[in-house]
């Protein structure tokens, strides 16, 4: 009760001190275009945009305003260029439908661009027929919340990204849906970003893409049916938790692609039906805990230069290959995982198999060396030599073993992510 009272007082105080007005924009109103509304508005005013179609582009918001759409008004850019550009702090966009962003090969036109501004809130937007969706440029402390972005991208070279962050810090991207663009969400030189509970699907290239971005978190997202689920490249200290990577299934698709990643934490994720679950290259000191790898072609493909990684308490179930490795050297630890291909026994009933499990099969070693041999997948001969390699390993790394394989899958409590 007391807090409510306090809040009420605070609101009253704020309202009094700012003296915000509401300007109504509609086709038959005194102010019939958004540009005009922005021009006459004072700082901290609200523009209430009524239902209708507004054929406008290059709307420049240069003062702290709230643009509030009522009953989904449509802003149609007629493919002439950028639609909304925010160059001021404290701007809120809410409830607008923005369509027909111009396509250009020299300028990255976006539906909404935020330039060198802070404390913005972009929510409940619907973006369609776009080039770039929401583009943040050197902007900090904002929130992108509950937007629906649906592109119609066909080729990578003439399409843009759904949500792009460039040199931006402390941004929350939450509960957005991004479909059919080039990269669903793209981060470049952006630190301390939280990407939570988004759904990114059917994108041409990546569902989520990190480049040179550090200390970021993504949690509870779903990446389905993308060219590749998530690509994390040249970044440090990224936390990847409780995400689902599903059906990134194609001749060169990945669930998760790691390249030059250090000190990351990958836990509680589910990788299901991807051609390659995780493709790892040059990545060190990463913890893989409590992940599920189900029905992938390759659950994990290690390409090389990967040291001091730990794989613990993961479930590897029904993958064609559990782990592919291309060298004889191993510095990674596999411990206490569940492998559905494990055929050992547990005589002392302590829950761990008594004989160690070797996750790298000879066949996967051969396929790595000579990819064409994959045509012999599931042949009797391969089963025989896999068996003989299992009995006495010659080609596969000698110390790549799970010495304590679990007899039963790890049951993962589904942590409920804050909504």
């Amino acid at each position, binding site marked *: 009760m007391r807090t409510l009272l306090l809040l009420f007082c605070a609101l009253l105080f704020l309202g009094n001190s700012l003296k915000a007005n509401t300007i109504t924009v509609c086709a038959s109103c005194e102010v019939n275009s958004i540009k005009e509304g922005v021009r006459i508005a004072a700082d901290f005013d609200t523009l209430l945009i009524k239902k209708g179609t507004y054929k406008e582009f290059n709307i420049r918001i240069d003062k702290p305003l709230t643009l509030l759409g009522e009953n989904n008004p449509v802003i149609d850019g007629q493919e002439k260029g950028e639609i909304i550009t925010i160059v001021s702090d404290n701007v809120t966009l809410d409830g607008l439908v923005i369509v027909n962003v111009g396509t250009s090969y020299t300028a990255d036109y976006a539906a909404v661009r935020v330039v060198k501004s802070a404390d913005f809130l972009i929510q409940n937007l619907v973006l369609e027929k776009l080039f770039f969706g929401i583009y943040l440029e050197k902007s900090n402390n904002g929130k992108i919340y509950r937007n629906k972005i649906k592109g119609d991208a066909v080729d990578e070279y003439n399409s843009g990204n759904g949500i792009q962050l460039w040199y931006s810090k402390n941004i929350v991207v939450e509960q957005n849906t991004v479909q059919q663009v080039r990269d669903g969400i793209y981060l470049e030189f952006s630190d301390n970003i939280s990407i939570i509970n988004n759904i990114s699907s059917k994108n041409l290239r990546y569902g989520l893409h990190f480049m040179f971005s550090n200390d970021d978190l993504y949690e509870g997202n779903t990446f389905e049916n993308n060219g590749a689920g998530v690509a994390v490249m040249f970044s440090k200290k990224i936390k990847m938790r409780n995400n689902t990577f599903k059906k990134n299934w194609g001749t060169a698709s990945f669930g998760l692609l790691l390249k030059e990643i250090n000190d990351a934490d990958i836990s509680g994720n589910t990788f299901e039906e991807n051609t390659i679950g995780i493709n790892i290259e040059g990545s060190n000191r990463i913890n893989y805990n409590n992940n599920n790898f189900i029905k992938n*072609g390759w659950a994990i493909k290690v390409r090389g230069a990967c040291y001091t990684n730990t794989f613990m308490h993961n479930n590897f179930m029904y993958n064609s290959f559990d782990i592919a490795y291309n060298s004889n050297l191993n510095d990674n630890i596999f411990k206490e995982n569940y492998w559905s291909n494990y055929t050992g026994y547990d005589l002392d009933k302590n829950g761990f198999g008594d004989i160690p499990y070797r996750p790298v099969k000879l066949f996967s070693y051969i396929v790595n*060396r000579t*990819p*064409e041999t994959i*045509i*012999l997948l599931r042949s009797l001969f391969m089963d025989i030599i896999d068996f003989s390699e299992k009995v006495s390993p010659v080609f596969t790394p000698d110390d790549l073993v799970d010495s304590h394989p679990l007899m039963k899958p790890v049951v993962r409590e589904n942590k409920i992510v804050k909504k």
Partner: protein
Amino acid sequence: MIKILKYSFYDLMRSRWSYVYFLFYLLLGFVLLFLNNDLSKAVITLMNVIIVLVPLIGTIFGVMYFYNSKEFTELLLAQPIKRSSIFIGQYLGVAGSLSMSLVLGLGIPFVMYGLFESNAIWDFSLLLITGAFLTLIFTALSFNIALSNENKIKGFGYAVLMWLFLAVIYDGLFLMSLIVFEQYPLDSFSLAATMFNPIDLSRTLILLKLDISALLGYTGAVFKQFFGTYIGVVISFVMLGFWTLLPILRLSFKAKRKDF
């Protein structure tokens, strides 16, 4: 020819081995479905069984039947019947009854577990069709071997060796050659090499229909085109047809000229 076919067919239908074979598949089907209850997964497991067992049984059965019915064949030869129709009639009788055991033995449990409502029906029919093809091919090959060898022991030996070669050794040599020549582009070669072994051919044909084909396409453009489109399926079926026809043609050709 029809009469001889009918005679061989009924003869085999009465024999104990057809029932054993039929019951084996019936049991296998039920056990598989009982254990994992998932039609599409059972289809994959079944594939492993079919591509190994069906050729073996076709081979052994063909050779055995040919030697066993030798006296009857000689009796028939004394009659005014065309030679090719005697042998082809017998061949079709054996292959037909084996295929029927296979199709019914596996079909009944799957139908009972609701195959028609499931979307695994195409995978399953493909499996049965390739199984039937493998029976036809290997019975024909074993008839050829038996016809060319008067000595039963030798004939059996060759037949088992042929199975062993096509099921295991061929893949071994194939793998060796791929590794030895890994510096060269191998896509077309490996596809061609698959075509020359009916077991490999059926295996890839079934893999094509399963989701796993994306794994194969990973390797290169030629694979991608072959496994990603209908071209692969069409070519594979045509080759299976050739594999069936050629031994039958040789059988009738040899039979006409052989001095009994």
